[in-house]
């Protein structure tokens, strides 16, 4: 079992359990009688801005934004649960790393992500590889971010920008270099466009 991820903050499993209970118990995820639901261990999610790519800052500029788990039932991917940091408040001051429900998303991208994780796990062999999810939302890129003996690598999840091939393993610098031109053009666009 070579794919590894950081340990989430204390209490995450309870939050995840409660979220699943609510999603399933209240019907947001419809399941048949005796269907068995399961969630993957949370993976850290990072976001990278177009400005950072345009400036060639690389993965060092990626910002940790939350944790993501895949919800399955009877082996079928139902979606992903995202947990985000609890907003600091009087009650939680000093413990802002606690997580809360951020969103539950269904669709082809989530199924592709789960398939990409399974593929990466098979491909990893015996080497220990640390894995996270990288999003570059401005360029419609979702990728697995692997860190192992070979340094940082990205595997784009389909569908992905045309400059990248989905499922292919890229050195992170090389993958991000293919996005510089698109990132610059996003940076130039005004703020009412997509």
């Amino acid at each position, binding site marked *: *079992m070579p*794919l*590894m991820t*950081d*340990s989430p903050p204390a209490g995450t*499993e309870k*939050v995840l*359990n*409660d*979220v699943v*209970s*609510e*999603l*399933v*118990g*209240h*019907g*947001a995820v419809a*399941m048949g*009688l*005796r269907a*068995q*639901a399961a*969630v*993957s*261990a949370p993976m850290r999610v*990072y*976001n990278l*801005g*177009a400005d*950072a790519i*345009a400036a060639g800052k690389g993965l060092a500029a990626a*910002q940790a*934004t*939350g944790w993501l788990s895949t919800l399955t039932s009877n082996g079928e991917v139902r*979606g992903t649960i995202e947990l*985000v940091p609890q907003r600091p408040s009087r009650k939680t001051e000093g413990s802002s790393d*606690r997580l*809360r*429900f*951020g*969103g*539950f*998303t*269904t*669709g082809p991208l989530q199924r592709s992500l789960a398939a990409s994780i399974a593929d990466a796990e098979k491909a990893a062999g015996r080497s220990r590889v640390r894995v996270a999810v990288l*999003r570059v*939302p*401005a*360029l*419609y890129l979702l990728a697995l971010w692997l860190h192992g003996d070979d340094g940082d690598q990205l595997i784009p999840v389909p*569908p992905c920008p*045309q400059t990248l091939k989905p499922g292919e393993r890229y050195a992170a610098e090389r993958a991000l270099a293919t996005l510089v031109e698109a990132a610059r053009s*996003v*940076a130039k*666009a005004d*703020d*009412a*466009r*997509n």
Partner: protein
Amino acid sequence: MPKTTVKKSSRSVARTRRTSAKRTAVRDVALYVPYKRAWWVIDIIKLLGSARCSGLAVEHQQQTNWCWAAVSNSVSNFYDAASTWTECSIVDAELGQSTCCTNGSSAACNQSWYLDKALTRVGRLQSWASGTLTFASVQSLINNGRPPCARQGWSGGGGHFMGITCYFEGLLGKWSGAGSTAKRLRITDPWYGDSVVDYTVFVSGYQGTGSWTHSYHTQ
């Protein structure tokens, strides 16, 4: 590898306990925690209580920059099932092209654009403005069968359009740390898919670094 045990609880689905969580800084992501219980198929609308949905379902965008076309076409279909608009025909019309239905991925066709202009093109824009909508405004619009659309601006530049199709309060987030008054939205997104999100996350933090920058009233 940390072990996970599963126990049945009278109230919750299951409780998990990691027995060696502090011994290691990393975890095996293949570890799946099973939730053993017989589930009933339950109607979300009935059980979410105050939930209400408009029926707007935004289709998947056919090209990476066509969220504006996917949203406007879906809004057009929502109000008029006989609408003859398609994503690519909207793109052709808005960008002054003629080949986007056969070569949509070309540089001339796969362009970012404005949702207000595309909605105007299909005759479905009532008004638009920068800024967010209050939860009460979203409720009112959906109750009146006029689902709003939104633009999320990403930290570092760029943005994305989507529809807001349902609202609900209090149930899903009850024990998730957001308190019993949590407000949720169902977002119908042409790229990320459909999602149930916390209202506050949709205002700031959608897909990690999005901020709700513009709102669009449809008709």
